[in-house]
């Protein structure tokens, strides 16, 4: 029987939850790296016992950890993220130019083909690659050649938070940055172009054709259809059917199209999940009801999933990296909240249960499906 391992990053440490394929009983270990902000943990698709973790602290900076036994033991690897050449400047909150400064790693994305290759998305926004299992890191500086003087941090900082590797084409990489937008490379990260046509941000970007500056919160792809991308933007849920060449809105009947995560079902490429949040000013669910919304039509038509989720007095948020899905049938869907709960559904989202309730604020959730 398959086994599920959840890698949970929180504001005060990492936790690892495991269950068999029934997904009704969970064992928990942790806190790993207690007291540190664990922005993201992710396992290698080709060597699932190899995990990478971003460990960070306002006092002590960035540390990268690697495990080769599924998180039982960890080794500190390289933490030198040095921008290529003279880093230059980007737009600051007051409109002036501000020097690029490394702050932390938001997201780690292991290669689907080689367990020693892993990408890191960092703040201030940049993409780094390691080919020696995290020991050394080199920036892919071409990304910052795409009008980066116009990139501007959002309220949460200017982080490169999403890295999507095309499993069918190792040359193609998508990244998303707050608040710069989506960028695509077709040559393994050497050169890049913006992929934001069709995004509308009328207040922040009055120019309807603005090439960069969109506050993209998260993108996701089904591995069988790498040209189809789904996006949760600051406002608006979007999709692209042409590899990010253009985007169309699919917010449809959502109660709010503001939110952070978006997740594609593991075996149904047109089934997607979002967690609507009331607004950019009020980062909690509308009406105090925690509802996951599912579309089985690739957007526009959405249904609320509420069974097992609190339907009154709930004012948590779900952050962009805090939702994931396993590969079992029926698909398991998971998300963590800023209130420290991790909710799981073993039936495509129809019903939910809190599998742990009192963790620190959850920053990231990754599901691994193990043999």
């Amino acid at each position, binding site marked *: 029987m398959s086994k599920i391992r959840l890698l949970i990053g929180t504001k005060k440490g990492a936790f690892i939850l495991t269950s068999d394929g029934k997904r009704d009983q969970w064992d928990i270990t942790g806190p790993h790296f207690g007291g540190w902000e664990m922005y993201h943990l992710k396992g290698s698709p080709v060597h699932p016992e190899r995990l990478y973790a971003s460990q960070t602290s306002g006092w002590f*900076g960035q540390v990268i950890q690697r495990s080769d036994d599924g998180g039982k033991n960890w080794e500190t690897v390289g933490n030198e993220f040095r921008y290529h050449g003279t880093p230059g400047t980007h737009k600051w909150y007051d409109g002036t130019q501000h020097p690029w400064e490394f702050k932390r790693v938001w997201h780690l994305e292991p290669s689907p083909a080689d367990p020693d290759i892993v990408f890191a998305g960092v703040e201030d926004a940049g993409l780094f690659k390691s080919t020696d299992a995290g020991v050394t890191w080199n920036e892919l500086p071409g990304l910052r050649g795409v009008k980066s003087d116009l990139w501007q941090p959002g309220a949460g900082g200017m982080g490169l938070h999403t890295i999507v590797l095309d499993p069918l084409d190792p040359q193609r990489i998508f990244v998303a940055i707050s608040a710069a937008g989506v960028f695509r490379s077709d040559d393994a990260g050497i050169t890049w172009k913006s992929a934001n046509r069709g995004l509308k941000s009328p207040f922040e970007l009055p120019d309807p054709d603005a090439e960069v500056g969109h506050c993209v919160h998260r993108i996701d792809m089904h591995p069988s259809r790498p040209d189809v991308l789904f996006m949760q933007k600051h406002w608006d849920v979007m999709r692209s059917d042409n590899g990010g060449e253009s985007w169309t809105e699919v917010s449809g009947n959502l109660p709010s199209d503001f939110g952070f995560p978006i997740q594609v079902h593991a075996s149904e490429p047109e089934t997607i999940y979002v967690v609507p949040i009331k607004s950019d000013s009020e980062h909690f669910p509308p009406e105090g009801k925690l509802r996951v919304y599912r579309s089985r039509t690739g957007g526009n038509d959405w249904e609320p999933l509420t069974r097992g989720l609190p339907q009154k007095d709930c004012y948590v948020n779900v952050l962009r990296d805090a939702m994931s899905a396993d590969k079992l049938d029926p698909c398991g869907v998971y998300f963590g909240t800023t209130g420290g709960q991790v909710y799981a559904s073993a039936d495509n989202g129809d019903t939910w249960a809190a599998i742990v309730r009192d963790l620190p604020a959850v920053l990231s959730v990754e599901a691994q499906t193990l043999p």
Partner: protein
Amino acid sequence: MIRVVLPYHLRTLAGIDGELRLEIPSPITLRAVLDALEAQNPVLRGTIRDHVTLQRRPFIRFYACKEDLSNDPPETQLPGAVISGIEPFFIVGAMAGG
């Protein structure tokens, strides 16, 4: 023999139990202590001072003999009591939690 006291999180990261002891040739400066500390414990590189600029991280403080040495130049020699091992050199996480 220089005695160095690290904050909890850095002791845990480096797998150090208690004080650290470093053999450092003269002159024993702030920079020399940090260089020796990082050479003996490479996992601490980047956690006390920046990799590139070698500037102290903003919420790290250096103390010795009840004096705050945090803003002293890197070539500052440590007090005699630290050099002789009577007093430890403290690396401290600043009170910045709010």
